[in-house]
């Protein structure tokens, strides 16, 4: 019972990756948009985009972290 509840919980925790996917897609689509509008700012916006990507990715990793915690710690 507990085992199956754990598996369900861990599976449900990975749903959160959907949000991260949207976020990362948004970051890079915005980068392409802004570079297409103003190519001279490409370098600067790329730095910001990488920063935004890293922040989003960090949030994305909460999902597998929760899944691991549910599966292996409790």
């Amino acid at each position: 019972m507990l085992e199956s509840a754990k598996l369900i919980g861990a599976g449900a925790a990975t749903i959160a990756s959907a949000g991260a996917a949207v976020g990362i897609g948004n970051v890079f689509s915005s980068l392409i948009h802004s570079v297409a509008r103003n190519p001279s700012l490409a370098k600067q916006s790329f730095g910001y985009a990488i920063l935004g990507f890293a922040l989003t990715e960090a949030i994305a990793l909460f999902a597998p972290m929760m899944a691991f915690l549910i599966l292996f710690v409790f």
Partner: protein
Amino acid sequence: MFEKFPRLFLFYENSLNSSATSSRTPSQSTTTITDSSLQSSDTQGSYDGIFEDHPGLNPSSERIVELQSDIREKLEELLINKSPDAAMVAAEALHGESDNIPFMEFILNDLNTNGVESESYKDALAALVKMVPSPLEQFEIIPFFPMKIGDLYFSFTNPSLFMLLTLSLVLLLLYFVTKKGGGNSVPNAWQSLVELIYDFVLNLVNEQISGLSGNVKQKFFPCILVTFTFSLFRNPQGMIPYSFTVTSHFLITLGLSFSIFIGITIVGFQRNGLHFLSFLLPAGVPLPLAPFLVLLELIPHCFRALSSGIRLFANMMAGHSSVKILSGSAWTMLCMNDLFYFIGDLGPLFIVLALTGPELGVAISQAHVSTISICIYLNDAINLHQSDSFL
């Protein structure tokens, strides 16, 4: 309950038809079964009572502990090439949390008389197979020199060892590069690495913290440089196989982020006095809204202390665990002794290889991100709401 203690169920079944023909090792096991069922009928009267606790009838908890340790020792004997820990796990899986003495005596008898052939031993093996090695095993803290001062735990553990190792290596690098009062005018590779890190953090501080003259800004520079090099070298160091990721422990990252948060708050009060409290209320807000807005600003501000710690820890832990899980699957496929699996194994293997690159990238970019966020918090604390940067 029964799925946790399978032997309990088996014993019950067997003792019911103990006189009937049993399929396994006839002579000895039947005697043990009748033996133990006799005992159980002595103490408890009926077979159904086996599943119930009778603390009044069996107050001998010492006997239970004794039996448990006997089972464990016997298993340690039998499981030759397994560690004592594994024997412990197997023994626990066998007797569970049962305090049923006849049942445990039965297991012990079975192990003693039948040895490797016994059902109990097979159950123990099955329990060991079922025991999946946790990918979180790599984050285990092992004390090397146990030390206790009063109630405080001061052991020299593997995080301390790896912290010391990385710290000494980085300090050695810095020492050798700046040996003759600042190195060469034409830098070699090592010196340019150090200069690169130095320049990078210097630019970061100059860009992110505004509204101060250069000299004042430089006061914060050493602290930020140290924080950056801490995560920059600690994070990728965890990617070395069989080493230990110091920053994958919440305690360490949280200690770092909390102390930085407290430091930033002190800097804010130092530079702005009590005016720092206006940080909690954006200018031009109507008075009725003020209580809510103060709360709304206070919560994210305090959450910063947690978030930068959690971010680093979660990145390190989740990334390393997923690499471990994938390499575990690649290893299992490789050990299956099957040509099909052997060819298919290339898939997970390449995924592991491909994941190692992003992992290193994440390790370095997390150092960058945490340093930038520290600079941003510092800028907020110094300038309050006057200059909003992009975050």
